[in-house]
């Protein structure tokens, strides 16, 4: 592939990180990260606060630049792309922000329509159709579609954020702590949505979370990072990489200490039982 061209993705995307490190100001946040994210896989990234999980997610979409190593999207090095080409490449990504990051001057419908209008889709019928499809997919009742973001609950905002991220049919979905600050019922709803998106669409997913229940529900693979300030220069930052079942059996003290007895139980319970559809339950609790 020629350097600088936008890779074609008809299905889920693959990503590869080779010796990636990030230094912001005087602080090194990430160091020596090597990772393959396969097409259609759901990778869950866990770790203590301050270990660089959010920076890791922003690296994947080029919002933060790697100071060492390279990041490959479908074998295309993000560093070699011009700003303009990177903007175009980002259309292949969906990003659910921790806060939803909805545009507060636009209504729910306008937020979901925003990416389509920006990419030159002018047919109102087509826009309308895709708004309805996306908002129905995330289970947001039509009575909320004309509301402003400030009139929505945290869970509803995240669902609108997810609808906006999915409307351009991304090849890779990035979720930044999707369940943080939500009650247990809404956490279940968002977990189910992530799972539904991963199963029903040709998409690769990367989920940053503190919630072991989210890990148990959605993960195909798990990456655990450790905060660099606590590590000696020779210690690797990646404490664990593997499947959820390998995580359960992992005997490393740092992993056992992070998960704790309760965490192990949650992973076991989550992966052994099918996750109930809590969408309707949550609707009633929030209306």
């Amino acid at each position, binding site marked *: 592939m020629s350097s600088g061209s936008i890779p074609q993705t008809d299905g889920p995307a693959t990503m590869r990180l080779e010796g990636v490190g990030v230094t912001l100001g005087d602080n090194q946040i990430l160091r020596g990260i090597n990772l393959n994210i396969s097409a259609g896989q759901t990778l869950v990234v866990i770790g203590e606060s301050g270990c660089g999980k959010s920076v890791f997610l922003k690296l994947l*979409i080029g*919002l933060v630049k790697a100071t060492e190593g390279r990041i490959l999207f479908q074998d295309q090095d993000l560093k070699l792309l011009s*700003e303009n080409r990177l*903007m175009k490449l*980002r259309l292949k990504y969906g*990003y659910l922000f921790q806060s939803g*990051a909805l545009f507060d001057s636009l209504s729910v419908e306008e937020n979901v329509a925003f990416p389509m209008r920006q990419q030159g889709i002018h047919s109102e019928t087509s826009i309308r159709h895709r708004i309805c499809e996306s908002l129905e997919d995330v289970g947001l009742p039509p009575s909320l579609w004309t509301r402003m973001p400030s009139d929505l609950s945290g869970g509803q905002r995240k669902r609108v954020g997810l609808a906006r991220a999915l409307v351009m049919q991304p090849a890779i979905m990035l979720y930044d702590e999707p369940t943080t600050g939500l009650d247990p019922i809404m956490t279940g709803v968002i977990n189910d949505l992530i799972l539904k998106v991963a199963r029903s669409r040709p998409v690769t997913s990367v989920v940053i979370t503190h919630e072991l229940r989210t890990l148990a529900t959605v993960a195909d693979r798990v990456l655990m990072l450790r905060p660099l300030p606590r590590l000696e220069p020779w210690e690797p930052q990646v404490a664990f990489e593997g499947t959820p079942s390998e995580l359960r059996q992992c005997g490393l003290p740092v992993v056992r200490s992070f998960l704790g007895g309760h965490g192990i139980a949650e992973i076991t319970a989550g992966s052994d039982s099918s996750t109930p559809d809590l969408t309707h339950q949550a609707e009633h609790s929030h209306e």
Partner: protein
Amino acid sequence: MLGAVETSGDFAVFVARVAFSLKRGVRWDVMGPLLVEIGFRSIGVVLFTGCFIGMVLAVQAHMQLAAYGAATRLGQMVNLSVIRELGPVLAATMLAGRVGGSISAEIATMRMSEQVDALACLGVSPIRYLAVPRFLACLILVPVLTVFANFMGILGGAIVATEIHGIEPYHYWQHASESVDLWDHLMGLIKAFFFGGSIGLISCYVGLNATGGARGVGIAATRAFVVSFLTIMVCDFFLGLFFARITPTMSRLLSGGGP
């Protein structure tokens, strides 16, 4: 010192990115509402400021001129001062506070709530979508609003001169029209153009680089005003020096006198 050099370099890169984005066309869908909103919301404060600049100037200048028996020259002094200097500077200062602070706070809030990152993630350049339309709106509106401020300044000065100081309106307007030429108007408008561009660029840059939550939004709004105001003053000085050199030539050229 190192921080100041770093910020200057970063600002220069930002200005280059705005200039580069201009080549890709203007987002009129974003800029149209901005022009209406910024222009309409600022017109009252600019008219009020302009009127009082002229009135205060007339009161102060009358004291000086009357001592030399040249009170009828008041129109010349008030109008030249308003058109060349005070109209553009004070209108721009008002707009740096009124519009610059608002632009900076709005973009800073978007930065804190990850809306700026969300734009980038949706394939929309924050520079092209947020900074370019606001920069152009300031570039266009500050000269336009300066014309309004000048008009009100001239009117305010004339009212004080004729109604309070009792100067004959014929003499007042006679001296005023003899002394103000097209180049004086152009000087004021060129200054306003530079001031407007500075306000737009500084406010967007400060907003996009804001950090620190709600306190950061307040700091960004204040910083945008202070830096814009200082830039207006410095810019005014250097433009004044430059205009002083070229004024004889320009006046001759514009009055049809040839080079």
